[in-house]
């Protein structure tokens, strides 16, 4: 499950502007939004540490959700909406109960627990914004 998601995310990055518009200029603050998350080395220790993944391997899990947030938090990418489909499902962020052991064992201090829990906020916003933003509701 998680390997499938990992593969899917690999090809998921999407440039919101056209190539001929030139390169992106990124401030240190914009870089700091995702810097920590990009340090992931796919060691999968967070999966070994996560009891929710141990109990249900359908759960997307900390590593993939952290990688997903790495792109969501980077303004050079425009595919957040597509990724939120993974986040919002029952096997997405809501499988996490904030045990926090994933962040404890992470050798690169990626803090996957933070990435997952920030996306609970995004997922909640997504849910409520459906009612005020008809565009989102109509999307297939």
């Amino acid at each position, binding site marked *: 499950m998680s390997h499938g998601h990992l593969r899917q995310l690999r090809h998921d990055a999407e440039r919101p502007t056209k190539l001929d518009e030139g390169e992106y200029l990124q*401030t*240190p*603050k914009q870089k*700091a*939004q995702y810097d920590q998350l990009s340090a992931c080395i796919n060691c999968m220790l967070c999966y*070994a540490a996560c*009891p929710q993944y*141990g*109990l249900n*391997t359908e759960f997307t899990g900390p590593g993939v959700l952290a990688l997903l947030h790495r792109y969501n938090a980077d303004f050079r990418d425009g595919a957040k909406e597509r990724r939120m489909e993974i986040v919002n499902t029952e096997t997405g962020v809501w499988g996490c*109960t*904030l*045990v*926090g*052991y994933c*962040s*404890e064992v992470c050798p690169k201090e990626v*803090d996957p*627990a*933070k990435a997952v*829990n*920030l996306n*609970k*906020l995004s997922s909640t916003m997504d849910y409520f914004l459906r009612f005020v933003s008809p565009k989102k509701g109509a999307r297939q």
Partner: protein
Amino acid sequence: MSGRSPYVRPMTNWWLKNPFYIRYMVREATSLFVAVYAFILLAGLASLEKGEEAWNGWLASLTNPVAILFHLLVLAAALYHTVTWFKVSPKVSPSLFIGNHRVPDKLITGVQYIIAAVAYLTLFIIAWI
């Protein structure tokens, strides 16, 4: 289907196998004590609405040694709940920035202790006067 047979770790009594998991389970269990205490306070509020006799009855029930013991237990649970919650709060709050630098997690936790200390001190002073 591939011929792979991936290792699936056994999860029986998983939370007893690691002190970190035990602390997590205790943290989650303390919320039950907080909930029970909320009901005790609600009962107090309901008795206040009923009249003086009911209110005094509720106050008297709190002086029971069992009630005092229970309150001490709830206090310990609530303190544990607070400490662990302050510890994980940087993980549930969006990253804060001062200039171009991210505010360190320890500072977020520390500021919460300061706010809590000020709030409790203010409450004690108000109750004292």
